[in-house]
C-alpha cells in the first residue's frame, strides 16, 4: 500500500482528528503556494494579466457568497447587483478625498458627514460590508415571506430599486454622473485576500451544523421547520453573510475600475454571477470558484474568435460579438451534458486528491 493510501485509509468516519490535522497542513501549504504564485504573477506578468487575475479574485468572492444563499440554502434570489452597488458606493464615498468629492458633485453638493470623511481602504471596506449586511437584513424581512419564483421576482425588484435610488439620490451618489477619481488601490493581494477570507468563512460555515441546517432548508423546508430549525433566521443568516462579502467585493471593484455609476450595477451583473454558479454547480463552493475563474478568463480567451483569421485557406474577417455567440453555445453545451453544472454538488477534498495521486481510486 502506498504512503498516501495508508494515510487516508477510509475509516467509518472521514473526520478523524488525524485526517483533519493533515488537511489543515495541506490547506496551509496550498495557501502558501497560491501566495507564491500571486507574487510571481505580480512581478513577472504584464499589467493586463494582473488586472484579470485581480478581477477573477473578486468574482470568486461574489460567486462563492452568492452560492451560499442560492446553492446551499436553495433560496433563488436575484439581488447581488444591489449589494455590490451598495458596497461600491459606500467604500468610494468613504475613501475619496473631500477635495475630489467637492469637485465631482457638480449638480448637488454631497451631504455633510460624507463630504468630510476620508478613510483608508480597510476600515472603509469593513463599513461597506456592514452597511450591505444591514441592508440585506432589513430587506430580508419582507423578502423571506415568499419562496421560490416569488422570491426571485421580489429580490429582482429590490435590485432595480437600489439602482434607481443610486440614479436619483443626487446628493449622495452624484446620480447618473457617478463617482470618479476613486484611487486605484485594489491589487492582487486585496482581491485574493478577500477571496481567501470568504472561502474560509463559507466553507467552515457549510461544514458546520449551521451548514447542515441550511442544506436541510434547501432539501425540505417543512421538514427542517418540524425538526426545530427556524427557517427564517437561517435564511437571514445566509443572506446577510453573503451580502457582507458581496459588499466588500463591491468596494474592491470600485477601487479596481476607479469610476462607478449606476449603469454598472444592472441586472446583467447578477445574471453573470448566476451563470457562474450554475455552470460551476449550484451548491458547490469549488464549482463557484472554478466558474468564476473560467468566466473571467474565458471571456478574454474567446476574443480569438473575433479576430480576422485564415482557416483552411478561407479568409474570415473579424466579427465583433462573435464571442458572445460562442459563449452561448458553450453554455448550452454545459447545460445539455452537465445539467448539474461542471461539479454538481461535489467538492474538492484532499482525500479525493490524494486518492487520485496515490491510488488512482475514484472519488472519496
Amino acid at each position, binding site marked *: 500500500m502506498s504512503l498516501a493510501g495508508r494515510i487516508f485509509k477510509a475509516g467509518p468516519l*472521514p473526520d478523524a482528528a488525524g485526517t483533519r490535522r493533515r488537511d489543515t497542513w495541506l490547506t496551509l501549504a496550498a495557501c502558501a503556494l497560491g501566495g507564491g504564485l500571486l507574487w510571481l504573477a505580480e512581478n513577472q506578468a504584464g499589467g493586463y494579466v494582473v488586472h484579470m487575475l485581480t478581477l477573477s479574485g473578486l468574482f470568486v468572492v461574489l460567486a462563492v457568497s452568492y452560492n451560499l444563499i442560492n446553492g446551499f440554502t436553495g433560496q433563488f434570489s436575484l439581488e447581488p447587483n444591489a449589494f455590490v452597488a451598495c458596497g461600491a458606493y459606500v467604500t468610494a464615498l468613504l475613501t475619496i478625498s473631500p477635495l475630489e468629492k467637492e469637485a465631482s458633485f457638480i449638480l448637488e453638493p454631497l451631504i455633510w458627514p460624507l463630504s468630510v470623511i476620508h478613510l483608508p481602504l480597510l476600515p472603509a471596506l469593513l463599513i461597506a460590508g456592514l452597511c450591505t449586511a444591514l441592508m440585506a437584513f432589513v430587506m430580508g424581512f419582507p423578502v423571506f415571506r415568499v419562496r421560490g419564483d416569488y422570491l426571485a421576482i421580489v429580490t429582482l425588484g429590490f435590485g432595480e430599486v437600489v439602482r434607481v435610488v443610486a440614479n436619483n439620490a443626487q446628493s449622495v451618489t452624484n446620480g447618473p454622473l457617478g463617482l470618479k477619481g476613486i484611487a486605484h488601490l485594489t491589487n492582487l493581494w486585496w482581491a485574493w485576500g478577500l477571496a481567501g477570507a470568504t472561502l474560509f468563512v463559507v466553507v*467552515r460555515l457549510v461544514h458546520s451544523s449551521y451548514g447542515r441546517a441550511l*442544506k436541510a432548508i434547501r432539501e425540505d423546508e417543512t*421538514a427542517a421547520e*418540524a*425538526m*426545530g*430549525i427556524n427557517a427564517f433566521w437561517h435564511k437571514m443568516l445566509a443572506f446577510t453573510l453573503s451580502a457582507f462579502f458581496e459588499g466588500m467585493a463591491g468596494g474592491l471593484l470600485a477601487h479596481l475600475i476607479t469610476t462607478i455609476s449606476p449603469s454598472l450595477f444592472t441586472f446583467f451583473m447578477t445574471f453573470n454571477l448566476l451563470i457562474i454558479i450554475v455552470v460551476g454547480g449550484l451548491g458547490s463552493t469549488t464549482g463557484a470558484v472554478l466558474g468564476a475563474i473560467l468566466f473571467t478568463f474565458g471571456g478574454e480567451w474567446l476574443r480569438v474568435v473575433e479576430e480576422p483569421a485564415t482557416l483552411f485557406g478561407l479568409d474570415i474577417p473579424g466579427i465583433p460579438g462573435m464571442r458572445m455567440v460562442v459563449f452561448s453555445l458553450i453554455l448550452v453545451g454545459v447545460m445539455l451534458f452537465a445539467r448539474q453544472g461542471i461539479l454538481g454538488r461535489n467538492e474538492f477534498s484532499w482525500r479525493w486528491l490524494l486518492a487520485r495521486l496515490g491510488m488512482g481510486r475514484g472519488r472519496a
Partner: protein
Amino acid sequence: MSGALLEIEGLSCRFGGLLALDSLDLAVEPGALAGLIGPNGAGKTTCFNLITGRVRPSGGNVRFQGRPLAGLRPSRVNRLGVARTFQNIRLFDDLTVLENVLVGFHGRLKANFLSAILRLPAYAREDRRMHDRGLELLDLVGLGRLGQERASNLAYGQQRLLEIARALATGPRLLLLDEPAAGMNPNETAALARLVRRLRDDMGISVLLIEHDMHFVMNLCESLTVLDHGRVIARGAPREVQSDPAVIEAYLGAGLETAPLEGGHA
C-alpha cells in the same frame, strides 16, 4: 385533564367548505402509547399538522405541558418537545443518513454561527457530542451501518426508521408518528413495534401515532381515538374500540354484524 402532557380542546380546522376537524378533544398522558385511527380523510394528519403549528386552527386550543401552542412556529413547537414524522416521507434526500439525524440536533445547538465558523472549543464539544449521539440513535433504530449512505438510497422501511431517528434527535417528550408502518413488511413492522415500545419504556417518550395497520395498532397502543369525518366516534382501550358498532360502520359501512377489525390489516 390537568397533568396531561398534551391537551387538545375543541380543536377545529376548516379548509374552505370542508370541516377537516370538528371540535376535537384529546388528551395524551405522560408515558402514553396512544393511537389515532380512522378511515382515509378522517382528519388524522390534519390533527398532527395543527398540533405542530404547520396549519393554523380555525378554533380551539392545544396545550403542551400546560403551555398553549397557538400561533407558534413549527420549529418553536418542536423545541418545546413535540417531534413528528411525516406520512409521505420527508427526509433531506441529498444529505447522508447521519447528517439527517444531525440536523435534528441543530435546533438545540447553543453555539452561535461565529463560534461554529471559528470552531471554538464550545462548538467543537457540542459537535462531537452530536456525532456520538447521532450514531447512537442510528444504532437504536437499526441503521448503524448506513450512516454515510445518501438518505434517498435507503429502502422505504429504512427511510421511515430514519425519520424516527431524526425526530428523536430533537429530544422530544412527545413523539407524533404519522403512519410509521406504511410500506413495511411484517418483519419490519414487528421490529418497529418493539422500537416504539422501547422509546416509551426506556426513554420515557410518550407516543401518539396514526396507523392503518390494525394488527400493529391493536397490539401496540394502550388507548385509541377513532376519527371519522373530523369527529371522534369512539375512544378507549383497543378491545372496546374494536367492537364498537360506530367504528365498524365507519370502516366498512352499515349493515355488518361481525367485528372485522380483529387482527389482520384494515
